[in-house]
C-alpha cells in the first residue's frame, strides 16, 4: 500500500485527536481551508471548531496561546504555515515552552507540538527557504524531529503528540506529495516511531552517510550511484535531531570507518557540524580512516533563480563526489 507523507501526517493527527480529547490543532488556515498544505484536510469537518482552530496570521500571539494552553494541561498542536514564520514566535518556543519545566523545577510541563514545513521549498527565495533543525536542536528542553518518509512522518508526529515535553516536528513541503509504501504496522492506530532513534535506511560496509529530512533522498540516490562503482554505503536517517542518536552512527562507523553528513541547512554550527564534534570527543574518532566530510546547503541566503537554487543545495553528484573523496577514490 502506498501513502503520501501528507496522508501520513493527516492520519496521525486524526488518530491522536480521536485518542485524546485534550489534543487540538491550531494555526493559520488549518480548519476551513483544510490546511495551507492540506495536511489537516477533513479534520475540521470531523472535529469542529473546538478542536481545529483557525488563527489570524499572528505567529507570536497564537504560539503563545498554544503554549499557555499546554501549561494549563491541554495538548496543543501548533502549526506554523512554514517554519520560517516560527521566527516571529521563537521566544515562545524557547523561552516559554522549552525552559519552563526546568525553571519551575518540574512544576509545569509543556506538552506541545510545533509542526509545519521546514527547509527549502521551490522558487520561494530566501525568506521562505531555510532549515531550522540546528536552531531548535541547539536548545535544551526541546525535542526536535525531522521526518523523511511517510513512516517517519506518521510515527514521529504521533509520538510527538503523546510526549509530555515540547517537540518541534520539522516536516518538508517538497515531501508532502511523495508516496511511500506502508504496511499495516504503520497504519496501526498505535504505531509510534520512538523519538531520539535513527533508522538505517540502507545497510552498507564502506561508508556511512548520515542525513535527515529530504536530504535522506539525496543520500539514498548517492548510495545507489556508489553501488554502481562497487561501494556499499550505509545510509542513516536521523529522524530525531535532538536527542541525536549518536550510538547508531558510532556503530555504523565502527563498521565503515568513513562518514559524510548530508543536510539542506547551512553548514556553520549545523547538524553535520555537531556530528563532527561528537566524533572528535568520542573514542569512535579512532575508527575513522579519513576526516568526516559535510555536504550542506551553500552558505548563502536561498536565491530565487532556478539554476542558482538548484546549486544552493547538495545534490546526488555532490554527495557521491564527497564520498569518493573521503574514500580516496576517483
Amino acid at each position, binding site marked *: 500500500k502506498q501513502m503520501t507523507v501528507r496522508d501520513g501526517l493527516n492520519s496521525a493527527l486524526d488518530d491522536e485527536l480521536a485518542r485524546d480529547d485534550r489534543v*487540538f490543532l491550531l494555526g493559520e488556515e488549518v480548519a476551513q481551508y483544510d490546511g495551507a498544505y492540506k495536511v489537516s484536510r477533513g479534520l475540521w469537518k470531523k472535529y469542529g471548531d*473546538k478542536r481545529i*482552530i483557525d*488563527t*489570524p496570521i*499572528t505567529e*507570536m*500571539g*497564537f*504560539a*503563545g*496561546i*498554544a*503554549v*499557555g*494552553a*499546554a*501549561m*494549563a*494541561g*491541554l495538548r*496543543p498542536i501548533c502549526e506554523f504555515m512554514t517554519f520560517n514564520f516560527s521566527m516571529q514566535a521563537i*521566544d*515562545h518556543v524557547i*523561552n*516559554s515552552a522549552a525552559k*519552563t*519545566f*526546568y*525553571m*519551575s*523545577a*518540574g*512544576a*509545569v*510541563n509543556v506538552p506541545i507540538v510545533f509542526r509545519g514545513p521546514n527547509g527549502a521549498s521551490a522558487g520561494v527565495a530566501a525568506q521562505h527557504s531555510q532549515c531550522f533543525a540546528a536552531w531548535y536542536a541547539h536548545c*535544551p*528542553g526541546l*525535542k526536535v524531529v525531522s521526518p523523511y518518509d511517510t513512516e517517519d512522518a506518521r510515527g514521529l508526529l504521533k509520538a510527538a503528540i503523546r*510526549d*509530555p*515535553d515540547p517537540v518541534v516536528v520539522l516536516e518538508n513541503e517538497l515531501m508532502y506529495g511523495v508516496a511511500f509504501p506502508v504496511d499495516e504496522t504503520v497504519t496501526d492506530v498505535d504505531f509510534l516511531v520512538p*523519538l*531520539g532513534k535513527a533508522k538505517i535506511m540502507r545497510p552498507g560496509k564502506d561508508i556511512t552517510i548520515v542525513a535527515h529530512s529530504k536530504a535522506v533522498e539525496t543520500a539514498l540516490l548517492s548510495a545507489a550511484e556508489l553501488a554502481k562503482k562497487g561501494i556499499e554505503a550505509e545510509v542513516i536517517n536521523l529522524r530525531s535531531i535532538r*536527542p541525536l542518536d549518536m*550510538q547508531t552512527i558510532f556503530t555504523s562507523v565502527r563498521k565503515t570507518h568513513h562518514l559524510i553528513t548530508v543536510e539542506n541547512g547551512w553548514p556553520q554550527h549545523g547538524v553535520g557540524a555537531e556530528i563532527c564534534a561528537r566524533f572528535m*570527543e568520542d573514542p569512535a574518532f579512532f575508527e575513522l580512516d579519513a576526516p568526516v566530510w559535510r555536504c550542506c546547503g551553500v552558505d548563502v541566503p536561498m536565491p530565487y533563480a532556478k539554476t542558482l537554487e538548484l546549486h544552493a543545495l547538495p545534490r546526488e553528484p555532490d554527495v557521491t563526489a564527497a564520498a569518493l573523496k573521503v574514500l580516496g577514490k576517483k
Partner: protein
Amino acid sequence: CSTLTLKNTFKCYELEKGPPMDVELSREDALKMYTQMVEVRRIEVVCNNMYKAKHIRGFCHLYNGQEAVAVGMCAVLQKKDSVITAYRAHAWTYLMGVSAYGLIAELVGVKTGCSRGKGGSMHTYGDNFYGGNGIVGAQVPLGAGIALAHRYKGDGGVCVALYGDGASNQGQVFEAYNMAKLWGLPCIFVCENNQYGMGTSIDRHAALTDFYMRGQYIPGLWVDGNQVLAVRSATQFAVDHARNCGPIVLEMNTYRYEGHSMSDPGTAYRSRNEVKTIRSKRDPIESFRKQILQLCLADEEELKKIDAKVRKDLQAISKKILADREVGLDELAADIYSKNLEPSIRGVSGFNLKHKNVADVCFGKSRRTPASEIKDVPIGDAAFAAAQKKASEESKARKAAAAAAKGKDGKDGKDGKDGKPPSDDKGEDKDAEPKDAKAAEPPKAAAPPKAPAPPKSGDKPKS
C-alpha cells in the same frame, strides 16, 4: 459589615455600566486583606534587605506600592481561576498560595524555594499560577492560552493575565487581544500601570496612556489601583464579564515606590518628591487602614498587632532560610525534560551528566519539596530539626502501634498503613515518612506558626 461608597475610582470604556460604587466590607475581609497587604509589603522589605546583603542575586523587582492590586484581585478569584504575571511576581506568588518561606527561599536560591532555587525571583509557580515570566509581554498570550484551556475544559475558570504599562506596547499583547476577542476567551487583561516602563514615563512610551482603552474592541475599565476595595469591586465585575462576555481590559492605576529592579535606584527619571507625595497621599495600606478605622471594623491596637506579627514572622522566616542549602550539583541536570530521552547530558567537557527527574509529579501540579528534604536543614536551628525528627518518630511509633493493634494480618495492615495518612503530598514520595501530614508542606512546617495556610484565593466562598 459596613457599606461605603467609592469615589473617583472607575472609568469605563465601551461598558454600559461599571462596577457598583457602593461596596460592603466585613470585618473578616477587612482584616484579611489588610494582613495580606502588610505581608506582601513586608516580604518585599525583607527581599530588599536580603538583596542588599547579597543573599539575593540577579534581577529582583519589588512590588512596594502596588499591593492593593494583587490583594484586591486575589480576594475575588476562586480556586478554579488562574493567574499569570510578569517578573514583578512576588506578591502574586504569595497570594496564589506559595508560602512566604517558599517564595523568599526561591529568591535566596535554596532548595526549599518554590522552584528549588532553579527559577529565582521571576520564575515562581503554584497551583493555577503560571509564573513569573521574565520576558516583557510574553505572559499575555500565554494567559490568553490558559483562558482558552479554561473554556476548552469548561471548568468555568477565568485567567488573569497581568502586564505593566511598559509591556502594554508589545505587539504580542495586541495579538492576544485580537484572538481573545475573536474567540471570546474568559481572559482578564490587567495593565498594572505603575507610571514607568523601566525608567520611561508613560507619556514618553505610550501614544495613548489610557491603557484601559487600548483593547479598542475590548471593553475596558480604569481602576484606582491603590484602593483595595476599588480593585476588589472591579475584579468582581471583570470576572463576571469574562465568564459571560469574554475578555476585558483593566487598567490598575498604581505606583511603585522602588526602582524598576534592585539595580535601579528609581531617582533618575522622577523626583524624590513625587514618590514622597504618593506615599503620603495614596499609599494603599495607609488608606485602607484609615478606611478600616473609620468604619470601626477594627481598632488601631489590633492593626498594630498585625503589623508586629507579620514583621516578626517574616524576620524569623528570613533567618531560617539563610540556614538552608542550595540543591546538590546532581540537580544541575534535573528536570530538563519530564520524559528525558537524552542518554546523558553534556557537562562542560563531555557527556558526563545524568538527567534526573526530581519532579515526580508534574502535569500542571506544583511539586512541594518533600518533608524528608526539609529535614536536612544542616546548620542552625537544631531545635527545629530535632522537633521534626521527634514528631516523625512519634508518629511512626503511633502508626506501628496502631498497626500492631489492628491485627495479625500483616499484609492488610500494611496496605491500610500506606493508604491511611491523609497527607496532601499526593504520595509523591515513595519513602514518605508517614508522619504528620502538615510536614508534607515544607515551608509551612518550617515556618513558625504564622498564617497557618498561605491565603489561597480559592478559599473564598463563592463571590
